[in-house]
């Protein structure tokens, strides 16, 4: 049994909390009595769940899975897709008294017989972690018994936040999945990359893949949007890891670099300029003039087309004020996308951002005076919106009703977003949605008719 997560997972050189405290304890963002994000289990499940031909079995009482499964908006194609199924051992009082390692074993065997998956992930949660169940032992035994990888994910919620859980998931992939298989020679092209941290929310992966394949760049594996076990097993054979908008999974890329010599870059596909830069960076990493020239031409053509499509939205959105409140990396990657739309980002949330993220924010801040919001509680958000005369709040689902109840226009830019926002097609989607949300007379109509009379 291992109650503590590895110290290595807290080793985040670019995190300001580490620099200041001189001790590698990572970030504890939640304080008692606050409303917080998810726990380590939540974070691990989010990262691994899109692997579609694996089963994801949660070992613990019902709440960890039962209160919230089947809600992510990752999309996938193909037939043997298992992430529509929420599986849990749903420990009861008997299991506490007599132990439930055998129940877990029986459960995995039952589910593997029923679904015939290509792999199984077992998630540890708070209660079995405290009662000291050895899920690593169970996983090891089952791997040799069932002949498929059974991966223990040591993700009890009390270890830390969602972000830590992301890393724990990366660690599980690195230790138990990556490097376990070699790819067929005919699926490799001249330029093979992995996309890390892309979960195919609303089908975003399709847009990214299109831009890449138009240039002859082959996505060998995606970690983990719309992915299969096999592609992750041979992902070490790619020529480049591209980490997309994820600080947490840089950990995985770094480990892969150490072991397989696989270089990595951190990129974003939100917005026109970011997509262009990312494509260019990927091409440059292959040191191939033919590819670089092809990408240059491609970028010129797509940029022109996209700008034409955006023209009508840009004209309207130009100078409109935005408050962007979203997690770490997106605080600058979306900022860049909003710049493409000509919008003025007055404030951006930096609660989960690293020092490096903050530097990037400054880099993209056109006016040089963006407010970095450290305190994202709803009351503070509303205050900033009113004081700065902000036109629209772009944030995640948990702030949707903060905005709506105060009659403030809103767009979800986190995982509950309604359309894909990545790549060339995505920025047009984003521009269009913000355009219609801001153009809508509904908010003013309600303000003048409701608030007056209701008071």
């Amino acid at each position, binding site marked *: 049994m291992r109650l503590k997560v590895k110290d290595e997972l807290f080793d985040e050189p670019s995190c300001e909390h580490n620099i200041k405290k001189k001790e590698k304890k990572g970030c504890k963002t939640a304080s008692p009595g606050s409303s917080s994000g998810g726990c380590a289990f*939540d974070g691990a499940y989010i990262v691994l769940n899109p692997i579609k031909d694996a089963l994801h079995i949660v070992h613990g009482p019902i709440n960890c899975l039962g209160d919230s499964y089947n809600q992510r908006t990752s999309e996938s194609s193909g037939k043997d897709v298992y992430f529509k199924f929420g599986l849990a051992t749903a*420990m009861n009082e008997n299991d506490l008294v007599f132990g439930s390692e055998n129940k877990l074993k029986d459960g995995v065997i039952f589910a593997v017989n029923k679904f015939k998956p290509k792999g199984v992930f077992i998630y540890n949660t708070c209660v079995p972690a405290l009662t000291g169940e050895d899920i690593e032992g169970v996983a090891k035994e089952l791997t040799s018994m069932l002949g498929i990888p059974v991966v223990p994910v040591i993700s009890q919620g009390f270890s830390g936040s969602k972000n830590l859980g992301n890393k724990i998931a990366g660690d599980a992939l690195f230790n138990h999945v990556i490097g376990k298989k070699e790819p067929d020679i005919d699926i490799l092209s001249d330029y093979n990359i992995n996309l890390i941290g892309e979960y195919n929310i609303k089908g975003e992966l399709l847009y990214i893949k299109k831009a890449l394949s138009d240039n002859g760049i082959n996505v060998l594996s995606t970690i983990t949007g719309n992915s299969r076990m096999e592609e992750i097993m041979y992902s070490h054979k790619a020529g480049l890891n591209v980490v997309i908008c994820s600080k947490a999974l840089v950990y995985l890329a770094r480990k892969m670099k150490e072991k397989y010599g696989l270089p990595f870059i951190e990129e974003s596909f939100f917005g026109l300029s970011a997509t262009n830069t990312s494509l260019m960076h990927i091409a440059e990493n292959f040191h191939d003039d033919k590819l670089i020239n092809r990408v240059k031409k491609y970028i010129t053509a797509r940029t022109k087309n996209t700008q034409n499509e955006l023209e009508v939205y840009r004209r309207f959105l130009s100078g409109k004020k935005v408050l962007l409140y979203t997690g770490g990396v997106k605080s600058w990657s979306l900022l860049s996308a909003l710049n493409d739309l000509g919008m003025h980002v007055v404030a951006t949330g930096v609660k989960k951002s690293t020092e490096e993220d903050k530097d990037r924010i400054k880099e993209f801040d056109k006016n040089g005076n963006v407010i970095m919001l450290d305190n994202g509680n709803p009351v503070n958000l509303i205050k900033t919106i009113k004081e700065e005369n902000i036109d629209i709040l772009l944030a995640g689902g948990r702030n949707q009703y903060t905005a709506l109840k105060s*009659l403030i226009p809103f767009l979800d830019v986190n995982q509950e977003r309604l359309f894909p926002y990545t790549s060339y097609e995505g920025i047009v989607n984003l521009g269009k949605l913000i355009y219609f949300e801001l153009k809508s007379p509904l908010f003013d109509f309600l303000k003048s008719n409701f608030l007056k009379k209701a*008071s």
Partner: protein
Amino acid sequence: MKPSNLKPLGLKPLEINPLKASPHLGAALFYLGIKNAVVLMHGSQGCASFDKVTLTKHFRENIPIMTTALDESGAILGGSEFLKSGVKNIIEKIKPEFIGITSTGLTEVNGEDIGSSIKELKQEVGQFPGVNLGYVSAPDYAGVMEDGYKNAMLSLIKDLAEKMRKNLIVLKDKNRGTNLKVNVFCPFSFTSMDFLELREVFEYFGIFPVMIPDLGTSLDGHLDKNGYLQTTSGGVEFNDIESIFFNDCNIVIGCSLFGLVEPLKNLTGLKTYYFSNISGLKNTDAFFDFLSKLTFAPVPEKYKRQRNQLMDAYLDSHFYFLGKNIAMALGIDLLDEFSAVFNEIDCGLKIGITTKTDQNIKKNIKNMFEIFDEGDIDLLDELTFDTGGIDLLISNSNAKYYAEKLGIPLFKAGFPIIDELGHNFKHFILYKGSANLAYEAGNKLINGV
């Protein structure tokens, strides 16, 4: 795999697409029906986050659930300091009138003495007038959402009864007039619209209902003149809950709350009436007869008309139910409610799946179904493996896959419903709600999707 190779139903070693949710989710829902309230979950941050996310998606409302955010040291050495500072932070920052605290699996299993922490907290909170605490033990590994809801209800009434015994509750509203005032306890399976319509029935009879909790005025989705609030923006006033002892009687509705009847009678000393459900013609008749006798008043014209409308709805829709079979995977209250209506239309109730419940409660409902079992939604897969023969599935959003696989329409009901708008505006009880149910289910059968 043939079903014969499977273990006996209900004995599966794991849940596949669970129907049940945890007790602290139910407890949180209870507290959310109290005005100016905040829920505090004592556990790791995920416990609160999962519940908050699901409730937010289901109700499309702000859900004020906070966490004590236990970390490794708290989990292993005990988290009473986390709990205390959580409560203090909430009082300082949000100033709610009520804080509903629940435990979680984590804080139950690490052997922490939450009871005495709560006792100390209550004394400390005494310094903040106008803040009240409620606490319920809600370990994830024992019971289901219905249990958490019921236990939170009972534990609050117990606390107040104790306060009453010590003469600490005084009746504030002395000019009560001659109107009857009744305490109404409803299950969380009622939609917000159900709560609001039921309230109106009481009001038509000239009765003032104290609904505990009131998920109608708190979660119906309304714009508050103050804009965004950090607490619940509606619900039953804490003062009204405190003064239930001075009211005329208790009315308990919903079979999952059957266990409350005796304790409520003893704790409040009031006459306590119980209705398993108030759906379908017969059951709604019984309910209106009861109100009529209670108030010595005739049934209002409005409801007499709705009664006639319901009978017409049965006639219009019954063709589409002829020879049809329904499968339901729902909480026990909705199974009970819905089967009352479908029985009257005479539609085949082939499969009923529900979560773990009291054998006594189960008895009545069990007989209505051809096959009845406790379990997960995936039981449908096993039960329909070679029989098929189901024309309509009624369950929550998580059953989507099974309806697609069987090629039959899914009528969404229960919890959670995250992929449909306005579920809280639906209404399935009393005369009008039963007619709605017959029409909506009938439409699903007409359209086949």
